[in-house]
């Protein structure tokens, strides 16, 4: 019995006095890196992987379009939909939407508008091609398929 009651001679406490400092450091890290979204994404986003990524030069020139199966399938059906900002749009609305996005930029930067297509892996080419056709008409021809970095196999 007494074997188990033996007290350790070494102090076993973890020093906690620096804990607030550590926590604050983490807190600041997340505060700085965080980006609060204005829009909640209503479509599935399983972004495919690729290796030849290019980084965008200027974030202010980028605008996002989300394409995928709606998360609320009972309400919106299973067909992939296009989401711009907070609403679902149809391909025919894209020209209008592009013009509105261009209006937000300074006049000399309007031609540099880049559309980032965040497309779900399982979405079909058909809907994406429709979007591309409209983007061509709207003269927003810089396009980026958002993907995640694939681990290099070497």
């Amino acid at each position, binding site marked *: 019995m007494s074997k188990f009651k033996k007290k350790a001679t070494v102090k076993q406490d973890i020093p906690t006095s620096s*804990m*607030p400092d550590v*926590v*604050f450091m*983490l*807190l600041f890290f*997340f*505060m700085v*890196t*965080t*980006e*609060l*979204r204005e829009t909640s994404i209503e479509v599935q986003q399983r*972004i*495919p*992987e*690729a*290796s*030849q*990524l*290019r*980084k*965008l*030069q200027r*974030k202010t020139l*980028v605008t996002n379009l989300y*394409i995928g199966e709606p998360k609320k399938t009972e309400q919106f059906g299973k067909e992939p939909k296009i989401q711009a900002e907070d609403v679902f749009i149809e391909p025919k609305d894209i020209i209008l939407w592009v013009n509105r996005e261009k209006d937000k930029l300074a006049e000399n930067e309007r031609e540099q508008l*880049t559309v*980032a297509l965040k*497309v*779900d*892996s*399982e*979405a*079909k*080419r*058909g809907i*994406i*091609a429709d979007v*591309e*056709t409209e*983007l*061509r*008409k709207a*003269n927003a*021809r*810089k*396009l*980026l*398929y*958002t*993907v*995640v*970095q694939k681990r290099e196999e070497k």
Partner: protein
Amino acid sequence: MARATPEIPNASMADIAFLLLTFFLVTTTIANDRGLSIGLPPPLDPNQPIIKQQERNIFTIQVNSSDALLVEGEPMEDVSGLKEDIKRFILNNGADPHLSDSPEKAIVSYKTDRGTSHKRFVQILDIIQGAYYDIYAERAGVTNARFREAASDPANPESKAIYDKGREGIPMNISIAEPTKIGG
């Protein structure tokens, strides 16, 4: 006279900080602003004559609605050799009569079906762009990753030099055709 020193109790500071930390941990999304960049062609002009390209200068890649691949008319299961095939096609310089005349004239034509999944589309596009970036990087004497970094940063003169050296005379001719409507 003993004066009461004003003090803020700081025992709960860690708790408050934890609470805030949890909030930011949950709400945070690290923005992903990287991807495969392409440029779309200008809108179709009905008056524009259709320019026929020579067959040998076009490397056709087709994907059908069940994501099966057809490269230069031959079915392909394993895509690991596709990148080398594209590189050989681009850098042929007229040597093989079935491959391109010159890198300048070489066009990689990529055609999908409306039923092709985006995942497959990205996978093949990645391989095609990879072939081009490998060629550019080799010419510029840098790694592929360094070249892509330089291409994204034209404001920096050093990057611009790398980019121009790699790109010179070899345009990235990737033609993404309007998808067919056979399946899906």
